């Protein structure tokens, strides 16, 4: 009797839940990369690259686009144009057109946050052209499909989890933390091939300007400890004149001595020194391995190394100062001085977004660079 009851209960619980709708992958269009562009009349256009699996066709990917008032609306619209149900559960990268980003991308981010089925690990990026144009790039030079290619560009250009690997979570934390501004990778089309061209500096969720991609090192260094990265520095040739091997250099000497280093270890530390006058101090520590020089500087003794280190310090410091000036001009705190300021502030008062916007252009930072060339290779 007891068993009968239990069997009945089990049967009921199976029957009453009915069938969960299945989502067989061969019937879906799996969105891999999405692109968002704002159109004129309050409409947005979502362009997506989808994987679709059909036995008859060899084409694995397809670009679909749809228009609507919201992202979901647009995807729905695109879905109605194709014979697959579009789903964004495997989305890896979301791209915003530059013009769209200038007006703010928060409204497009919302659904990524709200919809639990979307992965948080997707990367965000900005396109110099419209997102549709970037995703429609059809070049024979790209062996992969465009979505995988762009995703690969981001992955390959970053070590660990540093820029340009900015995922949705990173963006959100930089956005919502007061005293921080996010920055995203920016794609550009060069000779028909998309390239990772610059760092897009954002003020809150709005695009304000770009900084060349080779400076990503400086941004990463401000954020976290780095290692095993390559740094290129142009130093003035003049101080090294007397150490350069004369006989072998027949060609005319260049003004700048280009050098390349492998950063063995790099770290930074920022302190607030003067709260009233907003003076900060940032200590940069670099352990370098010299791997290339455009002139044959003979490193015979410690003095040459010391000189080299001094020049490196100067160059890095100058570059940081330039970058900061640029950021202050855009009023976008990508170096996160605001959060340092906030942590030093009296407990009673919460720093607001607007307050920091007013303060940031006024801050002064003393960069102390401590670079050590640990090894310089065996070039005798």
């Amino acid at each position, binding site marked *: 009797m007891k068993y009968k009851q239990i069997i009945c209960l089990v049967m009921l619980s199976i029957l009453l839940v009915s069938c969960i709708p299945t*989502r*067989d992958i*061969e019937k879906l269009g799996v969105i891999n990369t999405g692109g968002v562009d704002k159109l004129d009349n309050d409409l947005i256009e979502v362009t997506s690259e989808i994987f679709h699996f059909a036995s008859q066709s060899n084409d694995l990917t397809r670009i679909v686009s749809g228009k609507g008032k919201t992202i979901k609306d647009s995807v729905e619209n695109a879905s109605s144009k194709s014979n697959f149900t579009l789903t964004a559960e495997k989305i890896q990268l979301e791209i915003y057109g530059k013009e769209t980003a200038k007006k703010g991308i928060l409204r497009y981010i919302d659904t990524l946050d709200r919809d639990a089925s979307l992965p948080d690990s997707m990367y965000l990026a900005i396109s110099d052209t419209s997102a549709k144009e970037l995703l429609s790039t059809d070049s024979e030079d790209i062996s992969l499909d465009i979505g995988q290619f762009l995703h690969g560009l981001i992955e390959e250009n970053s070590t660990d989890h540093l820029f340009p690997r900015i995922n949705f979570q990173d963006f959100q934390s930089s956005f919502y933390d007061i005293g921080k501004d996010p920055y995203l990778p920016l794609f550009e089309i060069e000779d028909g091939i998309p390239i990772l061209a610059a760092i897009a500096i954002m003020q809150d969720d709005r695009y304000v300007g770009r900084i060349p991609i080779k400076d990503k090192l400086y941004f990463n260094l401000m954020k976290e400890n780095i290692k095993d990265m390559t740094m290129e520095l142009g130093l003035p040739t003049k101080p090294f004149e007397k150490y350069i091997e004369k006989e072998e250099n027949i060609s005319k000497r260049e003004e700048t001595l280009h050098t390349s280093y492998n950063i063995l270890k790099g770290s930074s530390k920022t302190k607030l020194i003067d709260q009233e006058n907003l003076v900060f101090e940032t200590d940069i520590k670099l352990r370098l391995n010299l791997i290339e020089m455009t002139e044959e500087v003979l490193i015979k003794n410690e003095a040459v190394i010391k000189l080299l280190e001094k020049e490196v310090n100067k160059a890095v410091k100058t570059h940081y100062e330039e970058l900061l000036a640029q950021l202050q001009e855009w009023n976008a705190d990508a170096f996160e001085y605001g959060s340092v300021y906030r942590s030093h502030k009296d407990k009673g008062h919460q720093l607001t977004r607007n307050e920091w916007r007013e303060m940031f252009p006024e801050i002064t930072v003393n960069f102390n660079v401590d670079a050590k060339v640990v090894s310089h290779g065996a070039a005798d």
Partner: protein
Amino acid sequence: MRKNRRSNKKTDNIFPINIDELEARLQKEFKNSPDLSFSKYEHHGKKIAVFSIPYLVEASMIEENLLKPLLNKDIPWTTQTILDEIPLNDSETITSFQEILQKLIIGTAFVYVEQAEEVVAYLLLNKEKRSLDKAETESLVLGPKIAFTESLITNLNIVRWRIRSTDLVMEELKVGNSLPREIRIVYMKSIANEADINTMRQRIQDLDVDEIEDSAVLQQYIEDDSLSIFPQFDSTELPDRFTYAVSQGKVGVLVENSPTGFIGPSSLFSFLESTEDLYMRWGAGSFLRFIRFIAMFFSIIITPAYVAAVTYQFGIIPTQLLISIGQSRAAVPFSPIFEALLLEFLIELLREAGARLPTKVGQTMGIVGGIVIGQAAVDAGLTSNILIIFVAMSALASFTSPSYLLGTTIRVVRFPLIILAGTLGLIGIVFGLSLLIIHLIRLTSLGRPYLTPLYPFQWRDMDKVFFRLPINITNKRAKSYQPKKLIRFSGKEASKKRDIDE
């Protein structure tokens, strides 16, 4: 029984009797079967009968040691002179007719002098048995290869030679009302836990059954939970595995006419242990054991996970894999659950067919099945090639179990899980696994928890179950089974170095 026999003695004592009459009575009992050999001789004017069942006794012994002296010696035979003069031991005198019948069928030869009070009986048992062989179902790379045979005597001999200690007890029990069979409980009296021995003995003694077909059947009679699909005793055909467990304080059981012994109490993990882990160095031993644990989990989970992922939660598949799975799935007209069940069924067919077929044909079967059918199934669009890999992997993984019984259980468990995964997705798998874990936690073997030492947790026993440590550190027996002697040897002494120059 004993009481019975005594009463028989009174009632069916038919002696003294005429030889012809005795023959007639015996022949009546063996009606329709021409097995009884009844020979009559005249010696010194006295009739003497020698009778036995020829294929149960050793003919040469009768010839050489019984008939020769009986007919050649020039003395008048009486019961007493036969007992004194015939050069055979194991003799006794019997008066009960019933007892004669009973002894006849276990290989006794009888001599009767006409009109004597008793019959003389000689136990000249000739039991046919195969010679010792290599283990078939549990093959090993290292260690002894010998396997138990169907002969209990041989098995006892092997066990005795492996544990040469007066501590070893081999208790005799008889089970089966109509067809009794001899059973031996084997344990170390100074090590094995008393409660375990008593439980085992009591469970076997309390059996009220017609007969025990095999040790596997006895296991099923006395296990803790007959409804469970998990085996609760560790059965083995390897004497070294058997004696190792016995020497560690477990209780072993050997059954007449069965080439497998079994050991209790067992835990789920003891089915995944092999004596080979012991013969390897500890690093390799731990690694192999670890591999086996992973393989079991893998074997259960991989096909259901495929079904769940492809049907519902494709988000967990990495993008690159998603592309190849999607492409191969696109050609398959069936739903993933049907596809998986079909392929699993195919593999089970191959496996079962392989086990039934003679060895030589079986090998060809494997090749035909593995390569031809697998490839053809993909080409025909019946299954996706990714699934073929998963199913093959899970089949392979289930073969790593040293215990055939557990391997079979894992094969069976997979099917409900596939169905759950196909109907409820990953939630279904979690649901199924939870049920499985609840069941395992409740399960006992000889009254001891089945998941020990994981539950109840016993830190000191981890090195016996999940990995192995260097031999000088493992100086204790498993505490979970509460042996009488926990310490095997002094750990301090073992770690001392005694080189000659010291």
